[in-house]
């Protein structure tokens, strides 16, 4: 009894230390997730806005963002409080953000008629509506009716925008493709004969006419599309005529009830998830980045899992266990510890320049010097990440193979199965949980990787998704966007870092959720596989 007391008291401090370390880890994780969740979700909340009037004559509308005490010269926090407002209105002479001392403020009020307006350029506006105009003709001036009239007009504008896009996508884009094909034929013809064949010249003329006609149609529609303006006024009395077609939406933040606020919050979140980015990523959504990340991870999984499984099977089942296999294993383990940018540089040097260059010169020589595969793209990025995550998969699968009992293999061999049949039909199915574990680890690693992607095809803004409706549907040579890089770009490379800070958190939250979702899918698959092979002792 005394002895066990003594050992326990000796073990106590060690145990306490372990408990403490665990508690700290859990706190860190919970803290991280909470911080990112709160900040990320708050980014879309429509706050109330104020009219602030100052002693120094300044007057502005703003959304209260921050409050902090001012430190005096002696370093003590006695000198009062400073408030930070987001004022928007960058094209009305505003700064975007304003600091103002509390003792400088004469009055703060919340006028109900204030409107928050999202635009396709220049960021949001925080203004009063004055009048709706077409050219010089005034359509509506009554402040009470203005929002309804604007709402109706925005609907028309939406329809017009959709029609313009349809014209560009369904008529102009194919015509451009045909013009490009014609140009390539002309280049080819010019190589063989000095004079252009007449049928090419005729075609060029016909298509040129068609093109010009279409452009004119588009131009006319555009002029009509942009004909209405909204006259707005800021707190200081500056006015501006905003083209209606550039307005994406508006709301009066001080008139919203809680439910409307919640609805607007949801709508903004949905826009964030589903829309294209605007204004160099500082506004709009991140859909292309989500899509790029998922597609890249998916392609990487398609490559790395078969490759990893085959390698592991060779190492574990076929290779004679000797110096060579030991060497290969050491190399594999070292690969797992290699800095990821090294893989990026390798991907650039090998995949992009060597492989891509070869593919271009063999199959896309007409388009040269414009590279097709000889530049970064989602395919090369996926292959680079597949190399990066290969060691993880190999190690996990090898362990899974080792866990399949010898008795089961012998059972198969004793029935006349060859070694290959045994591996394919018994050993590999039984190691499925381990294979999926490797996949989970690979996905987790790949989804968060940014550095190597920056040199093999990830871009700030990709004009087209890598999957679309035109054959061959998957355009693996296209560049892509990625959430990880998006965070960096939005947070540290955008012109208005303060305004995009909430977006950084929102994007981070999204990246975490995305990795979690990918993992949940893989873990569910693994558990299903485990249940299927339960009770066999491995």
């Amino acid at each position: 009894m005394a002895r066990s007391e003594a050992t326990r008291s000796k073990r106590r401090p060690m145990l306490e230390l372990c408990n403490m370390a665990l508690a700290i880890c859990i706190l860190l994780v919970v803290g991280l997730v909470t911080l990112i969740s709160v900040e990320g979700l708050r980014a879309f909340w429509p706050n109330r806005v104020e009219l602030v009037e100052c002693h120094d004559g300044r007057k502005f509308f703003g959304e209260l963002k921050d409050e902090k005490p001012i430190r005096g010269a002696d370093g003590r926090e006695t000198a009062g409080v400073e408030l930070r407002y987001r004022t928007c209105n960058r094209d009305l002479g505003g700064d975007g953000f304003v600091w103002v001392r509390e003792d400088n403020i004469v009055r703060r009020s919340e006028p109900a008629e204030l409107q928050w307006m999202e635009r396709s350029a220049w960021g949001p506006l925080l203004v009063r509506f004055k009048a709706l105009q077409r050219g010089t003709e005034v359509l509506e001036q009554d402040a009470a009716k203005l929002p309804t009239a604007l709402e109706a007009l925005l609907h028309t504008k939406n329809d017009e925008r959709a029609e313009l896009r349809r014209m560009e996508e369904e008529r102009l884009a194919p015509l451009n493709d045909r013009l490009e094909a014609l140009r390539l034929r002309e280049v080819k013809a010019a190589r063989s004969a000095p004079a252009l064949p007449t049928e090419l010249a005729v075609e060029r003329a016909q298509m040129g006419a068609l093109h010009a006609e279409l452009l004119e149609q588009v131009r006319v529609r555009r002029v009509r599309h942009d004909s209405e303006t909204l006259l707005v006024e800021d707190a200081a009395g500056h006015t501006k005529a905003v083209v209606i077609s550039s307005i994406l939406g508006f709301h009066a933040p001080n008139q919203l009830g809680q439910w409307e606020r919640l609805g607007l919050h949801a709508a903004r979140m949905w826009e964030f998830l589903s829309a294209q980015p605007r204004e160099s990523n500082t506004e709009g959504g991140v859909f292309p980045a989500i899509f790029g990340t998922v597609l890249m991870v998916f392609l990487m999984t398609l490559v790395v899992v078969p490759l990893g499984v085959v390698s592991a099977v060779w190492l574990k089942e076929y290779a004679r266990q000797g110096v060579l296999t030991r060497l290969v294993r050491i190399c594999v383990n070292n690969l797992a510890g290699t800095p990821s940018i090294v893989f990026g540089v390798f991907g650039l040097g090998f995949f992009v320049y060597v492989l891509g260059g070869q593919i271009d010169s063999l199959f896309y020589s007409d388009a040269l010097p414009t590279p097709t595969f000889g530049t970064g793209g989602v395919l090369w990025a996926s292959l680079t990440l597949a190399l990066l995550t290969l060691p993880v998969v190999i190690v996990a699968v090898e362990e899974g193979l080792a866990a399949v009992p010898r008795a089961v293999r012998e059972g198969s061999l004793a029935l006349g199965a060859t070694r290959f049949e045994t591996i394919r039909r018994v050993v590999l199915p039984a190691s499925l949980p381990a294979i999926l574990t490797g996949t989970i680890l690979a996905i987790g690693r790949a989804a968060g990787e940014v550095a190597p992607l920056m040199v093999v095809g990830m871009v700030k803004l990709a004009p087209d998704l890598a999957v679309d409706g035109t054959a061959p549907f998957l355009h693996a040579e296209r560049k892509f966007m990625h959430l990880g890089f998006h965070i960096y770009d939005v947070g540290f490379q955008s012109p208005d870092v303060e305004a995009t800070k909430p977006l950084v958190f929102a994007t981070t939250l999204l990246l975490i959720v995305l990795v979690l979702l990918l993992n949940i899918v893989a873990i569910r698959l693994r558990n299903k596989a485990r249940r299927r092979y339960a009770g066999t002792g491995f």
Partner: protein
Amino acid sequence: MDANSLTPKARPARLSATDPGITDPVFSVRGLNLHYGSAQALHGVHMDIPRHCVTALIGPSGCGKSTLIRCFNRMNDLVENVRIEGLITFDGRPIDDPLLDVSELRRQVGMVFQKSNPFPKSIYENVAYGPRIHGISRRADLDAIVERSLRSAALWDETKDRLNDNATGLSGGQQQRLCIARALAVDPEVILLDEPCSALDPISTARVEELIQELKGRYTLIIVTHSMQQASRVSDYTAFLYLGRLVEYGPTEQLFLNPMCRQTEDYITGRFG
């Protein structure tokens, strides 16, 4: 020491202590030496296995009986550093003939292991596994084979309603009978049983022994067992191995009632081993 027990007792049917005078053997083993690296596990084994009979291999642990039974379907090929000398013929043909397909040999010479080793698949897939790898893929054929094999292994009634359940959910005895059914499914001539009951309770053991009795008319069975009662119950011929040598081999009744060698008598009466 009884001097009398050292001298062989003459029996008309037996030519010597290790030759029961079998005609038309399935396997003939001639001068078999087997080395694991530098350790020799079998020493000059001479032995004929009778057709459509049950032959039991008995002996203390480490005497080489498992090694010997694994020679018959060349499972020892899988062990590294193994060296085999001598000759084993199967139906008159050497089993190490380079022209002989080892897969085909193992199809004809099935094996059931000490610890039941069902594949982590359904009961159906376990039995259908062998036929599938030997090229039978029609569902109707497979269904018929699975039913016939499970019936032969006396497992059909217990499993017919749960053929798609995982085989690992069966009891130990059922798993072992499933392994027998799995071996039967490829239509073998010989079934090797390597201590098939050592991990089973007495009731399951009795069922497996009954099964062996039912199978012996159609198949040649070779069984390794630690239990002398089991050997005397199920086998027609018994071979006693000791330290890698075949000490005595004869009809079970004679070997147990009138052993020719002193070592055999000591072992079966429990004086050592």
